[in-house]
Structures are given as structure tokens and as C-alpha cells.
């Protein structure tokens, strides 16, 4: 469960989050909608602990994210998957290395297990056999789907989607929406979507 309690965040004199309260239950999918600059991204960044609030708390499974640091925060982050608006794929790595990044860096899994898991995730997003491609060789829609494969690779309990269908054509947008629904029913994850 994700609980946001009296969350406040300002940038200089611009108040972005003002005593925000929100509860998201396990397995629930919620969509956050709002104008540009109203603090949707800022909220997602607080939930995953990239940003520290001025005051207030974010509690995930009885752990207060805002108080965690270092190893504890990283352990909590392993419960998360996040799809960024522009996919945020590491362009110095191949598709396979991107998708398996968390497994390569944080688990002792052998190469065969990682390769199989990467192939499985890419298949789930409909991109079989592109592990060896460079990020620069992918189209916008493919990047989004590879980003999604990376987000689900460690079997996260919670997935955050930052504008998942922005910048893709309507057909691809529908395909991504279907994929999100399918993943939610398959993986039983909690999902937070941000949309303009």
C-alpha cells in the first residue's frame, strides 16, 4: 500500500504540492490527471524517493520513503518499476542490457537466467529478439515498450507510468494501454499512471 500524508513541496516561492493526501491500495490502478506543471511528476518522484519533500510523508508497506537512505532506499526501489515519459533508456547499452540492468547490477543471477528473463520481458511487450539492438536503432514506440520491459524485469510490486502514451501515435497508444491492463492482470501490480 502507498500512503501519501500531508506532502508539501515548493521550488523557491512556487508551491507545487500543498498538503497532498493519497492512499493507493495493493493491486489498485490509479490515474493522476492535471495541467502541465501542477506537480504530477513531482509526486511520482517523491513516491520513488528521487525527491525529498519539504514536509509530509510517503509510506510504502509501512516504510517511510522520505526517511530512507542508501541501501534501505535501494532495497525499497527494487519493489518498483518505472516507465519514464521519454523511456530514459541508457543509450550506451544495448536493448538487452537495458532490460536486464537491475538483474545484472543487483542480483547474483547467472548470465543464462538473465538472458532468459530479458527475452521473456521483451516477448511480453511484443518485441521478441531485439536484445542486440542499440537504443538509437529503435523507434519512439519501441523505446516505450523496451522501457516497459525494463520496468517489469524484476517483477515489481508497484509500477509507475509517467505519461505512458505521450509522443506515440494513437494506434501505439492503444497498444500500450492494452499492455498496461494486461500486465496489471498478469502481474497483479499496483500501478500509478500520470497523464496530462
Amino acid at each position, binding site marked *: 500500500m502507498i500512503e501519501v500524508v500531508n506532502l508539501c513541496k515548493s521550488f523557491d516561492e512556487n508551491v507545487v504540492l500543498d498538503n497532498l493526501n493519497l492512499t493507493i491500495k495493493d493491486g489498485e490502478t490509479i490515474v493522476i490527471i492535471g495541467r502541465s506543471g501542477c506537480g504530477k511528476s513531482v509526486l511520482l*518522484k517523491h513516491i*520513488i524517493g*528521487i525527491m525529498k519533500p519539504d514536509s509530509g510523508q510517503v509510506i510504502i508497506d509501512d516504510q517511510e520513503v522520505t526517511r530512507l537512505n542508501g541501501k534501505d532506499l535501494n532495497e525499497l*526501489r*527494487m519493489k518498483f518499476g518505472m516507465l519514464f515519459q521519454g523511456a530514459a*533508456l541508457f*543509450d550506451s547499452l544495448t536493448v538487452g542490457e537495458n532490460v536486464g*540492468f537491475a538483474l545484472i*547490477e543487483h542480483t547474483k543471477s547467472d548470465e543464462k537466467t538473465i538472458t532468459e528473463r530479458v527475452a521473456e520481458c521483451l516477448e511480453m511487450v511484443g518485441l521478441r529478439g531485439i536484445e542486440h539492438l542499440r537504443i538509437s536503432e529503435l523507434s519512439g514506440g519501441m523505446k516505450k515498450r523496451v522501457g516497459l520491459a525494463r520496468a517489469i524485469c524484476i517483477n515489481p510490486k508497484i509500477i509507475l507510468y509517467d505519461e505512458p502514451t505521450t509522443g506515440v501515435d494513437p494506434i501505439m497508444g492503444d497498444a500500450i494501454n492494452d499492455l498496461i491492463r494486461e500486465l496489471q492482470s498478469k502481474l497483479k501490480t499496483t500501478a500509478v499512471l500520470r497523464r496530462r
Partner: protein
Amino acid sequence: MNNWIWGLGERFISFIRYTGGVFVLFTQTIFWIFVPPLKRRPILDQMVKVGINSLPIVFLTSMFTGMVLALQSAYQMQKISAQLYIASLVALSMTRELGPVLTALVVAGRTGASITAELGSMKVTEQIDALETLASNPIKYLVVPRFLALLFMLPLLTVYADMIGIFGGYVVGVWKLNITHNLYMEMTWNPLKLKDVITGLIKSIAFAMIICTVACYEGFRVEGGAEGVGAATTKAVVTSFILIIAADCLFTALFYFGFSF
């Protein structure tokens, strides 16, 4: 008058904030070096980028510097029939000053700029945020390999620059000024002490720390897309140049007027 004092105060605060930020990044980098695991592959990749790929430009810079140094000093020394001392002058200038400083400036312009541009692009495309969400520390993953690679490769590049610079002087001395091979070599090695080479290497280690920390700090601070990346890259190179020259001045004062070893 009030505005002027206000502006001065703001500049001073931003200077303190900048210096503090660079220092904090430096201490965090040292901390993360000792946090396992330390993967060899990214460090080796960076060593190739930073060191091996810099060899041609360091070769050209040092070769021409050694040659010009010999030619310019020959012009003066001929008047007092002391051309022979050109060999010593080139050897000492290269090992003590020009080798470490010119190599550091070349590497700051080439590698420092590329580090800032790379990290800056990663910042504006949210790749740094993505690293954090994937439970990886950006300093451990991005800064530490670059820092260690520079720390190891810059002293090696400096030794290489020293040798090439001395060879540049040799080319002018032997082929243009008709100094014999044996005499030129004797006049090169005789005045050269181990201290000259070691102080040059100590300087290059400090310069490596400056180049990497400033470049990474500027990269992490980038805001506002491609324009921001360009501005940060320029600032990283200019700041590194200033700090390298200031540090060189400080080290020279310490080694040749402060310590005696």
C-alpha cells in the same frame, strides 16, 4: 550602490555553493570507490576512452611544444654560444611543467568536455533518474569509473608527453642545431632528477581529480535541454582550465619553494 553590494553578495554565495558542491561530490566519489563491488569492465572501458584515445592529440601537442621550446631557446642561446643547454632546458621544462600542465589541459578539453556532455545529456533525458529508480547510485555507476580511469591514465599520459616533448627537442637539437646524439642525451639526463618527474606525476594526479570532479559536477547540474548541455560543457572546460593552472602554481610553489626532498 546597494544593488552592487547585493550582486557581489549573490556572486559570493553562488561561488561558495559551487565550491561546496564540487567538494561534496569529490568526497562522495572517494566514499563510493570503497563501497563494493568495484567492477573492472567499466573502468577499463573508460581507461580506453580517456587514455588510449588521447594518445594522438597528446603526441602532437607534446612533440610540437618540445620542438618550439628548443627552437625558441636556440634563438636566444646562440647569442651566448650556449645551444648545448637547450637539451637540459627542454627536459626540465617538459617534466616539471609543460608535460603535466599541457596534458591536463588537453585532457580537460577533450575528455572533461565529453564527460560533461554525456552526463548532461543523460540528465536531461532522465537517464540519471532512471538509474536511481533501478536502485543504482549515479556516483558509483557513472563517476567512480571515470574518476579511477583518469587517476590512472593521466599520470601515464604525462610520462608519455614528457618523453615525446624531449624527443621533439632532440629532433631540433640534433638535426637542426647539429648537437651530437651522445652530447644531447647527456645534457638531457644529467640535470634531470627523480624529483622533477615525481612532482610532475603528483601534479597530474591532482589535475585528474580536478578534471573529473568538475566535469561530473557540471554534468549533473545541467538544466534545460541541449542549450544547457552546451553551457555546462563550456563551463566545465573553463573551470577546469582555471583550477589546473591555479593548482599548478600552488604545487610549484610548494615543491620548489616550500618542501625540499
